[in-house]
């Protein structure tokens, strides 16, 4: 997908000899564009959920909420983590944790402001049957502290940085796409995001080549798309 996106971006930019993007520039914008779209999933999910509860989304083909959910689920990852020194170190690629379980039991998040109250609660403090976890910087820890086994963590991972890899042609022409390079990385977003990626990269590219018209056209395309979705 990354090669197609790059070609589209370059085609738009070169249409009227507006300029050129180097592979490094493209990779940098591609990373940024992917993160923008990934983070939009969260607000989009909340917005569509509100629409669905207001009965403004239909089932099946009209259910855009399930489309966004499926797009987000692409980043779901399950990991088993062992305790080290009383703590469970978070995976380095974790963006947001969704669920923690211990021996098949759901582990509930305990916020720092409620920790003391809950620990002292005689009715619903964390216990072996209803355990809780606290989240501190780079690690989790369980309550009660008698729990020392592995936890199963389901989380959303951060998308990997896309990288368009290439070989230089001997004739000094445009670099040639090389998907076999060891550091090659395609976009992790689904193919349905191709258009959005092109628009986001064009917005960034327009600023770089000092061509405000490109940014305007891209922003306009984006606005039209948003308007369609909100009807």
């Amino acid at each position, binding site marked *: 997908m990354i090669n197609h996106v790059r070609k589209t971006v370059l085609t738009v930019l070169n249409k009227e000899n507006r300029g050129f993007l180097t592979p490094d520039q493209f990779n940098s914008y591609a990373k940024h564009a992917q993160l923008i779209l990934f983070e939009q999933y969260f607000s989009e999910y909340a917005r569509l*959920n509100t629409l*669905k*509860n207001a009965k403004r989304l239909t089932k099946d083909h009209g259910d855009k909420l399930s489309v966004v959910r499926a797009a987000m689920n692409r980043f779901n990852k399950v990991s088993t983590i062992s305790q080290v020194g009383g703590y469970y170190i978070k995976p380095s690629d974790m963006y947001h944790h969704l669920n923690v379980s211990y021996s098949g039991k*759901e582990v*509930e998040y*305990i916020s720092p402001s409620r920790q003391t109250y*809950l620990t002292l*609660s005689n*009715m*619903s*403090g*964390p*216990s*072996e*049957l*209803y355990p*809780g976890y606290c989240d501190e910087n780079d690690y989790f820890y369980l309550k009660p502290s008698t729990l020392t086994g592995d936890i199963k963590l389901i989380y959303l991972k951060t998308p990997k940085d896309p990288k368009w890899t290439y070989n230089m042609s001997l004739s000094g022409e445009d670099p040639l796409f090389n998907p076999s390079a060891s550091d090659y990385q395609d976009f992790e977003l689904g193919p349905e995001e191709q258009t959005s990626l092109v628009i986001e990269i064009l917005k960034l590219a327009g600023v770089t080549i000092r061509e405000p018209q490109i940014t305007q056209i891209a922003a306009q395309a984006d606005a039209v798309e948003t308007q369609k979705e909100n009807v």
Partner: protein
Amino acid sequence: MGLTDKQYYDNSSNWGSHQFVKLSDIINNFYAFYVGDDKIINDISRYDVVFHAKRGLQELHYDALNDIRALELEVGDDLQTELPKDFVRLVKVSWVDERGRLRPMISDKNTRTADAYLQDDNFDIIFDDQGTAINGTSIIDTRLSGVNDQEGDANDYLNKADEFFGGRYGLDTSSSNANGKYNIDKNSGYIRFSSSINARTVVVEYVTDGLDNLTEAELQVNKLAEDFLYKYIANQVIQYKHNIQEYIVRRFKNESFAAMKNMKIRMMDIHPLDLTQALKGRNKWIK
């Protein structure tokens, strides 16, 4: 899923288990079917649900389950015994006679336990270094321990006075009982008995909240009360959530109330056979 007949009958821990549902299952089901993005309760912490579930279980025990526990204890020379661990409210105290029958006792409303502060010669209260009043031995305790109904003291004028208490207007039925008396000191956590109970075995019947004698995993409730618990938890959660329309709050409250009434009727355990049995004597001639 369900056990086979063999699995059921081979393991005594399974016997009668079908009448109960575990509290942990109720909490899990509540999450699965009452909480979600497309439900009225979109999000709630599990510890909130656990709290309300346990509170609901306590209310059930106080109100409807009629689950009265009984504990058999021997009374020593000190004429007192500790309250049971999961004691919440007393139902009845009896002693066991030679044939194993229960002899119900009555509560002694004329005897009280009292703190007794030490006083100096000027009748001023004596305090320790921390400014706390020092407790001595209660004169009530001293005098009660000196009474012996079974021996010579039976003819003591004070006991006679007790015997004839209310005599002018006939027998005081509220205190007339040949089986002895008891008195509960709720703060200190023990039951004191009249001296006639010395060396006897007593049975304390009491209401519990259903939580203390079991581990969290063992907590369970009769299936006839299951629906009430779901409605109770939902009502409690909705009551304390903000931005819920008042008509929804009222609807949940009404549902919870109706579920409680239904549950109480179900738990009353009245059968037509019991009624016909009781009514068989309706034409009996009284001579």
